[in-house]
């Protein structure tokens, strides 16, 4: 099992336990979070975007951020 934190930067960030092979999508579902079209999930430790099909890293914090586009 892996332990991760997931939530909005300024909001609640519950810690949840997920299966070893769980993806981000599973984690969102478990946390009851719906990802809006204007949002994405970023891993706090690396500031990289995480896709919904990616495997989760134990101990990582996943934050919901705006889906910004650079120019």
């Amino acid at each position, binding site marked *: 099992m892996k332990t991760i934190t997931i939530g909005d*930067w300024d909001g609640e960030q519950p810690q949840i336990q997920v299966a070893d092979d769980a993806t981000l999508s599973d984690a969102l579902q478990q946390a009851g979070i719906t990802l809006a079209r204007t949002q994405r999930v*970023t891993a*706090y*430790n*690396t*500031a*990289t*975007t995480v896709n919904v099909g990616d495997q989760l890293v134990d101990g990582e914090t996943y*934050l919901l*951020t*705006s889906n*910004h*586009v*650079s*120019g």
Partner: protein
Amino acid sequence: MVEIEVSKEVILDGETSKYGRLHQGAYKRWRVRFHEILYDWGVRRVINTITPVTAADLIYEEPTLYILPMIEGVKKVVEDNLTKTIQKDGSKIVLHPHYAVLDDSCVRIKRGNDIIADYYRQRNLIILYFNPFPYIPRTTYFRNALSLIQEQMPEICEAGNAEEINESSLERNAVAFQKNIKAAKTKIQNTIQNAHDGIETRGTQITNLYRDIIIETKKLEGVKETEKNFLPNFKKELEELEKVPFIRGVKISQKGIEADFGEIYIKRKTVKYYIGHIVVLITPDEVLFYNKNNARDKHPHPHVGVNHKACFSSYQKDVSKLIAELKLTKLVFLLGQFLQTYNPESPIYKIGYWRTKGKVKKIKSPTTGRMIALPPVGVDEEDLNDVSRAARARISRMRRTR
């Protein structure tokens, strides 16, 4: 008495200067007699000129004699179907031909085959085509010609003509006046509409300005709060900043806050591009990006220009807000996101140039002669899809010549 208006164009060299003589010496008696004859006819104005006029413009309030004579006593030649007069000094005078009949009201007066006058009843106009003021006064000639006109245009000599002319003039003037009223009405309507549009536009502008005032007032309150507790907040933010996992180090200087982001990579589809060792300088006004080891053609990053300023696009609003509120931890997190993402639709410098580490190879462009950076070999097809077809062809040509 009838006034003679001699136009200035009449005062020319040669034969035409004789027109000036009608005011002098022996001509004076003749001129007076001529006036009396015309006056008896009802003519109230005489215009004497050799300058070509546009007959269509000739409409007068009162019966007018327009003298456009053939100038006599000179040599005549025909050029371009036009009879021209050559004066004794060699200069030419173009004689105006008889006007084509303008309207149905024209009565053409002839003497044999010669047209000597046109009478336009509804224009109050007689155009006289012969010269009543020859070099040598030919009284008999003129008297006969005038008698001929008088015979053929008896109505011009009658006072009753005035009423019909006035009626016709009134109608013309009324139509013109009505047109002016319509034009004035349209102009006023347009002015009113423009004023309405102007009010609407300004109303929208005022609303937007009020909205901006509200937003900026809130921002100001936030900034004032930050300013009030600046030092303790600043210290706290710096401490938090140093704990951010992907920041290697933080330095404070008079220039601003330097955050070392370390080695930055951008993963794009199956390729992981090494961008370089990025350091970001955060100042109260802006954020500047520096690449310590792998800038491409002086670009620190695909979305950063040679002036170290980024094209933040949709990041801009949040970046500005976080700087103003001094939320440094959130700011560097956002900048970290920015540095590790690539928007293929609008980069400043395409990511393909960071395909391999090391110095960028440059060659001379065959078209412009300037040195341009060459994309490294082995660029994935997926990356090439970002490049236009023309650019791909250019890249292939350049590689072949390397």
